[in-house]
């Protein structure tokens, strides 16, 4: 199980879904905050929903307000960057470029890409955390059982 967790994690990096920033998050995780990374990722996904919705809405209004789109996307990109969402970030940048030149079609298309990557990463991370949880709990249990055994032995 542990190996599976490690495998999943490494795959995320190898496949370019995550970058070094994710490592920074992992570094922040410790005994006092054993699920810090997951917590942050959850935070991101919760918050990013409203940003995505905002972009959807703005994209529907005509004439397209590119400045606003760029602004929202900038926020979204910043958020994604902070969790190390590499592919998502890339698509965001692309989207912003389309905004800069006022390419509506490009924006709409690119936005779909952004959403796709965003969703894909979410699935993968959820998967990873599930495994991670199991491993984590197992670790705790095993350490606890050790204590228990010692105790009973001592008796």
């Amino acid at each position, binding site marked *: 199980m542990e190996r599976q967790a490690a495998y999943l994690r490494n795959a995320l990096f190898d496949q370019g879904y995550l970058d070094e*920033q994710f490592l*920074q*998050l992992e*570094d*922040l995780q410790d005994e006092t*905050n054993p699920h*810090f990374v997951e*917590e*942050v990722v959850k*935070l*991101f996904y919760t*918050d990013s929903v409203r940003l995505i919705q905002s972009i959807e809405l703005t994209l529907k209004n005509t004439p397209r307000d590119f400045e606003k789109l760029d*602004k929202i996307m*900038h*926020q979204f*990109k*910043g*958020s994604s*960057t*902070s*969790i*190390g969402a590499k592919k998502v970030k890339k698509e965001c940048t692309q989207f912003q470029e389309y905004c800069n030149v006022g390419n509506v079609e490009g924006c709409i298309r690119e936005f779909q890409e952004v959403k796709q990557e965003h969703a894909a990463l979410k699935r993968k991370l959820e998967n990873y955390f599930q495994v991670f949880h199991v491993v984590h709990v197992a670790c705790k249990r095993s350490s606890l059982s050790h204590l228990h055994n010692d105790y009973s032995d001592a008796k």
Partner: protein
Amino acid sequence: MNLGVNSMSVTTSSASWKSGDAVSDQFPAGLRVLVVDDDPTCLRILEKMLRNCRYEVTTCGRAEVALKLLRDNKDGFDVVISDVHMPDMDGFKLLERVGLEMDLPVIMMSADDSKSVVMKGVTHGACDYLIKPVRMEALKNIWQHVVRKKKNEWKEKDAEQSGSVEEGDRQQKPTDDVDYSSSANEGNWRNSRKRKEEEDDGDDKDDSSTLKKPRVVWSVELHQQFVTAVNQLGIDKAVPKKILELMNVPGLTRENVASHLQKYRLYLRRLSGQPQNGLGNSFLGPQDSGFGSISSLNGLDLQAYASSGQIPAQSLASIQAAALGRVTNKSGISVPIVDQHNIFSFDNPNMRFLDGQQHHSNGKQVNLLHGIPTNMDSKQLAALHQSGQPFGNTLMNVHSQSGQSNSLLTQMVQPQSRTQMLNEVGGNPVLNFPSSVGQPGLSQPIPGSVFSRFGMDNNVRPLTYKSLSQPTSVVEFSRSQGMELSGNSIPLTSNSGIPSYTSKGTTLQEEVNSEIKGSRGFLPNFDAFNELSQNRTDTWDLQNVGSTFETPQHSNVQSRLDVPPSVLVQPAFASDHRNGHLRTTSVNKAAFSTATSLGNGTNFGQQLTPSHADSSLRIKTERLPDMGFQNSLFPDQLGQDDLMSTLLKQQQDGLAPVENEFGFDEYQLDNLPV
């Protein structure tokens, strides 16, 4: 315990706030940080990182809430970290407010690493600028900004105290100048810092009396009151004591008034007939737009400028007078101290420039100095000066030329986008740098943006500073001018300055060496930025010294010399250009300013990581004809020499033969670190 933990509600604006009991005994552990960011994800991450650094963290999702927190707990925080793009309030606005009201070091951060934004940060007075995603290492060192700021405050305090003794004396003598400068510096710094937010004047005044730092912010309002009081009494009969009584401002001391009066008198003399008030008023007006940024920059007397409007003349005069006296002071102070100090020193030299410039009416763009006639210009200059430093004058001059935007730079003195800048800059050089931005050194150079504005050269290439701290205003300066203030590159020091910027991370030294030709001067400073700012300062000082020396030597060069200082200073640089004439007199100043600017430059440099050495460096290279001897003077300062020479060259183009008058020699001796 962290209260903050609970409030971390990322989405809400709640912020746990800590009582101000946290002491900095176990410094840096326990440093009280306030983080403001509308992105809950980032906020959470930052909070965790800071906690891991053993800092005490309070988080906030909205700027308004943050301000409230800060206001309610005046001494509850040591440093503020804020995002640039926030929905309810622009990060820079928050930056200004915090600088004005609470005078805390503020670190900006953003995923945006474009030069312009970073520059904006610098000009608005940010101590540092972090690029997102923020790494743990970057946060570990933020305590240095707090220390630096405190250090500067103490220095100001001392200066003010010693300066106040001499109140009431006309400064014609160097001694007076010295005092004047010191007290002026303090006042100036403060003023410039606060200038931006005039509305907060009230707070400032009160705060100044209660704060441990005895700085007085000569806000527009305050200055108006001062002027009214003086006019009532009659300029000849106005004595500090009476003025103080008339003004009836709580917390204002006689010393503050006396030093301000000195400046004002100089200014009036300088105007020689120009309607002071008019200038002042107009000055203020245009300034706001431009200055705003600058003032925050350095905490310089921007306010003083703005408020007095007239200051330009005054400052010039005082600067000149003080220049001699000051120069010595400045040099001492300039480098090590927080940017502000540097700025201050620059001012003096700049002042000289300004004077010169004014006489000279450069047809060229800037004539800021000349500017006095142009009300706007002079005002701007004045504003510039103020903001930049006590010297302010020089800046002002420069500014006027460049226009409002320059004012921001005040330090940068971009004023003349063209080559003039170099020449003119001479005046400003001093000013510019100090801007190190009023705020506590931005020690972290902003990776991306560099102030390219300075564009010392005619090309006016915008220097890109990588200054983290305050990218904003600097950039603006050069822009208006067209000239690029090589702000970044204070040619003097870092010859390679400009180029070095790009290297960003290179230490000042490296820059200097590489630059030597480029007179980029600035770059070194910027690099330092990356590294410990302290280191930079040292480098800078040296450089400054070097530069100053050089100036005296060349009479022609003088013009250039001016430039160097300006270059360093940034805005001052611009003035050099313009000042062709200034140079002569200001050469000394320039030298001085350069030196100081160098010093400042380092500070500045530290903050900024010049990424592009562009224009500023150019100036140096172009000009430096005389630099030759300079080099001999200061071998280690080669960079500076180049700067100088570049500056000089540039100046030469635009300037008329400069006369070295004044105390340049004097300055040299004093300033030389030898």
